[in-house]
C-alpha cells in the first residue's frame, strides 16, 4: 500500500516532463520523505518506480547536499555558516546547538532526536543568522533560542524533511 503511494507520487512527477529522467530529483526527495534517508533499499525502490538504473539514481543523489546517504535523526537542524551569517554571530549559534544537543556538527544527538549540520548560504543573509529546522527557516536566530528549539524537537514526532 505504502509502496503504491510512492509509486503514484513519482508517476505524477514524471508526467510534468518530456523525459522521465527529469523527475529523478523529485523521486529521490519523495523517497527520502518516506524513509528519512536514502538506504540501498530506497534506491532500489526509486529505480523501480522511475525505471532508471540504480547506479544512475545513486550517481545523481550523491551530487546534491540535500539527500541523506546515511541515517539521520528524527529532525535535522541546519545552521548557515556562510559569510553574512558568520559576520553576525553564526559560530555562537553553532556552539549553542552543540551544547544543547551534546553533539558536534555532522553528528546526531544520542537520543536520536536531532542531526546537526552546518550548511552554506541559505538565502536569508539580510535576516541572519539563519537556521533551518526540517526545512523551515528561522531568521534572526539568537544563541539563546537554541534551547527552546531543541526542547520542542525532542518532544515532537518525526517531520518531513
Amino acid at each position, binding site marked *: 500500500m505504502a509502496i503504491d503511494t510512492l509509486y503514484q507520487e513519482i508517476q505524477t512527477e514524471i508526467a*510534468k*516532463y*518530456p*523525459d*522521465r*529522467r*527529469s*523527475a*529523478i*530529483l*523529485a523521486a*529521490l*526527495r519523495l523517497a527520502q520523505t518516506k524513509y528519512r534517508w536514502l538506504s540501498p533499499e530506497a534506491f532500489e525502490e526509486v529505480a523501480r518506480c522511475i525505471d532508471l538504473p540504480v547506479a544512475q539514481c545513486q*550517481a*545523481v543523489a*550523491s*551530487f*546534491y*547536499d*540535500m*539527500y*541523506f*546517504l*546515511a541515517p*539521520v535523526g528524527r529532525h535535522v537542524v541546519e545552521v548557515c*555558516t*556562510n*559569510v*553574512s551569517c*558568520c*559576520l*553576525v*554571530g553564526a*559560530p*555562537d549559534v*553553532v556552539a549553542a546547538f552543540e551544547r544543547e544537543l551534546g553533539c*558536534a*556538527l*555532522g553528528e546526531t544527538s544520542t537520543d536520536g532526536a536531532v*542531526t*546537526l*549540520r*552546518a*550548511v*552554506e*548560504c*541559505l*538565502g*536569508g*543573509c*539580510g*535576516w*541572519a543568522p539563519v537556521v*533551518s529546522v526540517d*526545512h523551515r*527557516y*528561522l*531568521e*534572526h536566530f539568537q544563541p539563546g*533560542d537554541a534551547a527552546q528549539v531543541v526542547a520542542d524537537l525532542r518532544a515532537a514526532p518525526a517531520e518531513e524533511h
Partner: protein
Amino acid sequence: MQGPTYAAPRPDAILLDFEGERQDIAVYETAGGYAMARSQAGRPFEEIVQELKDSGLRGRGGAGFPTGLKVSFIGKGSRYLVVNADESEPGTFKDRELMLRNPHALVEGCVILCNAIGAGAAYIYIRGEYATEALVLDAAVAQARQRGYVGATLPGAPGAVEVYVHRGAGAYICGEETALLSSLNGERGQPTAKPPFPAVSGAWASPTLLNNVETVATVPFILAMGCKTYSELRTEQTTGTRLMSLSGNVARPGNYELPVTATFGDLIDGCGGGVPAGRSLKCFIPGGSSAPILMPDQLDVQIAVETCAAAGTMAGSGAVIVIDDRTCMVQLALRVADFYRHESCGKCTPCREGTRWMVELLKKVESGQAQRAEIDLLLELCDRMEGKCLCPLGDACAMPVRSYLQHFRAEFDAHVEQGGCPGGAASPFGALYPELKRSLPLVPA
C-alpha cells in the same frame, strides 16, 4: 527569532512598490496584474524582442547579459522557458523575497515570454532549500490556472502555456546555466561546454530561453509602462531598478529596490544606516561573494553593470556584504574559498584542484604555518584558475581572494611574521576556524 523582515518600498520601486506580500491573485489583478499577459499574448515575437531591446533590460542573475538580445537568439523548433530560481550566490536573497511577495509577477512574466517565443511550458528551477517558496509558487500557478492564464490559450496566443515548479536538491553550481540544464535533464548538475548555447540546445536538447527570476518578473512591468519610460531610469549601459540584497555588518540589512543610478553609499549608508555604532567600514563585497571587494573610498561607485566593471569588480547578483574592522581578511578568504571548494563539481581540473589548493594554502597562512613565498603562490594559483576553467566557478573562487590580497597584503604577511592570526578568535570567523568541521554531505562512515 522571527521570519523575514521586509524593508519599506523605495521611491523608485517597480517590482516591490507595496508593503507586505501579494500572493492572492485578486490583489495582483486589482493592481493591474495579468493585463500584459492578456494584451501581449498575440503580439509578434519581433515586437516583443524590440521592446525588450529598447528597454535596455539586462539579466539580473549575475552576468548582466542584455535580455532582448538573448530572447532574439532563440532557435527554431519546440522551445522552453527555464527560470533560474537557484539563488545560491552567498549574500543573495532577493529572488526569495520577490517570490514570496510578488509571485504572480514571475508567473505573468513566464506566460508572456512563453507566448512570445512560442514555448508550451516554463520550468522554474528553484533551489531545494526554498521549500516554502516552492509552495507559494505552486499556489500562484494554481490560481493562474483557475483564471485561465496557465493551461489555457489566451486570445491571440500561439497556444496554452504550462508553468512547472522544479525543485533542486542543494548544489550551488546548479545556478550556472548549463549545470542547471544538466540537473533539469536528470543528470548530475555539471556544466557543459558552450557552444551549444541553451538558445540552441538546452532543456531536453531543445532551444531554451533561460533567465533569472528578477529578469522574468520585470518583463510585465516593462511592457505595461513601455520601454521608453522604463529606460529613462538609466546609467549609460544599464536601465531600471535592481533588487539589492544588503547584509553583513550593517545597521538595517534587507532587500532594497534601487534605481541603477544609485551608489553603494546610497545603499549601505542611506538605506542600511551604515556599519554598527562604534565600528568602521573595512571594505564591502558588491555583487555576491565571488565579486572582488571595493574599499570605503569607492562608496560613490554606481551599482550599474558598467560602473562596477570600471571599478574593477562586478555587479553580479546584486548582493552587497558589508564588512567592518573586526574581520580578519585571511579568515574571510578561507571562508569564501572553502565555499567554492565545497561547491566545485569536480569536472574540470583547474577548478577541482585549484579550489582545494587555495583552501589548503589559506589554512596554512591562517594558522601561521606558511612561508612568505606561499602568499605569492596564492597569487600564482589565481593566475592558473582565472579564465581557465570550464565554467566561471573557478574564477568565482580566485577573483575575490586576489582582491583581498591586493588590498590587504599586509594582513596576510602579518600571519606569516607573527605565526598566526593577530586578531585571533576576535574575528567573526575565529570560532569556526581552523577546525570548522565539515558535515556535508552525510555519507556512510
